[in-house]
C-alpha cells in the first residue's frame, strides 16, 4: 500500500512537470520558434505623439541578434538615413550631412526617431537566459490566448531593465506582452504583440506596440509588412562602407 502511494505521487509530480515547463524551457521554445539564421524584413513604425502621429518605413537586414542594417525609406526627411549595428556598436548615417556618427554613452538612451524605443533597447543582443534568472509565476489569458507568466530578474549589473514580466503563448511559443521594470519597481516600458501569423512554418507577431510609460502619447506601433527568413545576405551589407552607399 505504501509503495503504491509513493508511485502515484511520483507519477502525479511527473505529469504536473510536463503540464508546466520551467521558465528556461519556455524561453528556449520561444528562441527556437522566433530565431533564424538571418532575416530581411520591411516594416513601418507609427509614432503616436501628444500632438500628432507620423509613420516611417524601413528595410532591415539582420543576422541573429548581433548584426543588423536598417535603411529608412520614408518620409522624405528620414529617407536615406541608415543604421548599422555590429555586436555592441551602433552607427547612424545621415545623408544630408554625409556624416557617420557612432551612438555611444548617454546618446544610447535617446529615442530612436522619436519613438518609444531607445537605442539601448536596440542594442540588447544577449540571450535573456544569460542575463536574467527566470521563473514561472502563473498562467493568464491575454486576448483569448492562454499564456505563461514569467518573471525575470537581472543576474548581471549592466542591463537596461532590472526585471521583466513576460506573457508567453503556451501553444505558439511567442511573447504576447512584456513589462519592463526599473530596480525601484517602476514600470518603464510595456510591449504588446499581436496579429500573430504563421510565416515559413513559424508563428510570428507582425504588430508590436511599444509604450514608454514615462512619456505621454499612445506609444509606437511597429508593423512588419514583409519578412523573409534565411536569405542570402551579402557580407558587405554589415560594414561601415555600406552606410554611405
Amino acid at each position, binding site marked *: 500500500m505504501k509503495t503504491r502511494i509513493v508511485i502515484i505521487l511520483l507519477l502525479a509530480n511527473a505529469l504536473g512537470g510536463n503540464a508546466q515547463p520551467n521558465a528556461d524551457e519556455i524561453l528556449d521554445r520561444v528562441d527556437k520558434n522566433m530565431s533564424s539564421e538571418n532575416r530581411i524584413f520591411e516594416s513601418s513604425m507609427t509614432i503616436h505623439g501628444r500632438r500628432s502621429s507620423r509613420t516611417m518605413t524601413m528595410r532591415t537586414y539582420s543576422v541573429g541578434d548581433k548584426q543588423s542594417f536598417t535603411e529608412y525609406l520614408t518620409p522624405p526627411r528620414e529617407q536615406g538615413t541608415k543604421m548599422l549595428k555590429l555586436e555592441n556598436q551602433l552607427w*547612424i548615417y545621415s545623408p544630408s550631412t554625409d556624416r557617420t556618427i557612432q551612438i555611444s554613452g548617454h546618446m544610447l538612451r535617446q529615442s530612436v526617431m522619436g519613438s518609444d524605443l531607445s537605442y539601448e533597447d536596440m542594442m540588447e543582443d544577449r540571450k535573456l537566459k544569460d542575463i536574467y534568472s527566470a521563473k514561472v509565476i502563473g498562467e493568464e489569458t491575454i486576448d483569448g490566448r492562454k499564456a505563461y507568466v514569467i518573471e525575470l530578474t537581472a543576474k548581471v549589473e549592466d542591463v537596461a531593465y532590472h526585471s521583466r514580466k513576460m506573457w508567453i503563448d503556451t501553444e505558439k511559443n511567442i511573447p504576447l506582452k512584456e513589462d519592463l521594470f526599473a530596480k525601484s519597481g517602476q514600470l518603464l516600458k510595456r510591449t504588446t504583440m499581436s496579429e500573430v501569423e504563421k510565416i515559413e512554418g513559424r508563428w510570428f507577431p507582425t504588430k508590436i506596440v511599444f509604450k514608454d510609460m514615462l512619456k505621454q502619447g499612445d506609444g509606437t506601433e511597429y508593423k512588419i509588412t514583409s519578412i523573409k527568413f534565411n536569405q542570402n545576405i551579402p557580407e558587405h551589407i554589415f560594414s561601415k562602407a555600406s552606410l554611405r552607399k
Partner: protein
Amino acid sequence: MIKFLIKGLLRDKSRSRVPIIVVSIGVMLTVLMNAYIRGFMGDTIEVNAKFTNGHLKVMTRAYAENANQIPNDLALVDVDQLVSDLRNQIPGVSWAPRIQFGGLVDIPDENGETKSQGPAIGMGVDLLSIDSKEIERLNLERSIVRGNLIKNRGEAMLSEEFSVKLGVGPGDEITLIGSTMHGSMSMDNFILVGTVNFGAEAIDKGAILLDIEDARRALDMYDSSSEILGFFNDGFYNNDLAVRIAKDFNEAQDPNDEFAPIIKSLSQQGAMGQYVALTSVWSVYISLVFIIAMSLVLWNAGLLGGLRRYGEVGIRIAMGEEKGHVYRSMIYESIFIGIAGSIVGTAFGLFFAWLIQKYGIDITGMMQGSSMMLPTHIRARIAPSDFYIGLFPGLISTVLGTMLAGIGIYKRQTAKLFKELEA
C-alpha cells in the same frame, strides 16, 4: 547778507569744514550705493531677460510645465501669426521668437570620423532679419572673440571656451546632432564663422548659436519656436506691468488646451521670481542704509550747530540781534553747507561709481557651478538721477539739523544771558 554769511563761513573753518565733510560722506555713500545696487541688480535681471527669460515669455501650457527640460515637441506652432496677434494685443513690447535646444556638437576629421565632440546648449535667434534687434540685445558684436557674426544661412557661432575645447576655429565645419521637434535624431552641418564670449558661465561652457531659420530647418520646426520672448520697449523690466499682462493674456486662453499659448512674466520663471523679490527686499535695505547714514548727518549737524555755536548765539542775542534773525541766518548758512556738501559728495560718489562701472568687480570665482546667469563682473550703473539724488538728502538733512538745534535760540532768556556768558 548772503555775501556776508558766505564770507563768515569761509573764514571760520570750524563752521564750514567739518559739516561739509560730514554731509559729503553721507551724500557720497548714497550716490555710490545707488549706482552700485542699480548696476548689480539691473545687470543680473537684464542678462537673464536677454538670454533666457525675456521680460515676458510666451510658451504653450504644456511646454511651460516642463520648460527646464526644453521639450520642443510641445513648442509653439504658427508662430508668425501668433507674433502678429501679440503685437496687436500688447503694444509697447517687442517680440522675439527663440528656439532653445540641447544637442551635441561633433567635429569631423579629414575622413569624416568624429575628431572631438561635446554637449551644447543651442539657441536659434533671429539674426538675419533686417528689423531684428537680437544682435544688439545679446550684445553679440561686442562679444565676438574670433571671426564675425552670422551673415548667411548655414553658418553658426560657438562660445569661445567651447570652440577651444573642441579645437575648432572660424572657417571649420561642425556637425550639430540634435533632436527634431518630433523626437527624431537630426544631423546638420554648419560653417563656424565666429566665436563669442557671452560673459555668463552657464552659457560659455558650451553654446552654439544659429539663425532661427537654420534652427527651424535642423530641428524640423517650421513656423515653430520653443518660446517667444517679449521685451518692454523702454528696456527696463517692470514687474507689476509684466504680471498684469500675463494675467490678462492667460485668462483669455482655453484652460483645457495644453497647447494654448500662455505668458509668464520674468518673475514667474523659476529662480528669477525669487531674485526679483530679493531685489525689492534689497531696495528696502538700501533705503535703510540711506536713512541711517542721513540720520548720522542730521545728528552731527544738529549737535555741532547746537554745542559749538551756543556761546556765539548768546552774544548775538545779548548784543540785541533778533532771535528770528539769528535763527534765519543759521538756516541760510546750513543751506550753503548742504549745497556745498552735496556737490562735493556727489562728485566723489560719481567718481567711485564710475570706477566700478568702468572696471567692475570680478566675481568669476564666486559663480563656479552657478546655473543662474549672473554677470561675471559686478558693475555700477550711473543714471541721471545720481547727479541730483544726493542733493536732496544732503541739503534737507543739514537744514533740518540746524532747524532742530536752532529751536533752542527761542528758549534762551535775555536776563540770564550775561550770567551764562560770565560762566
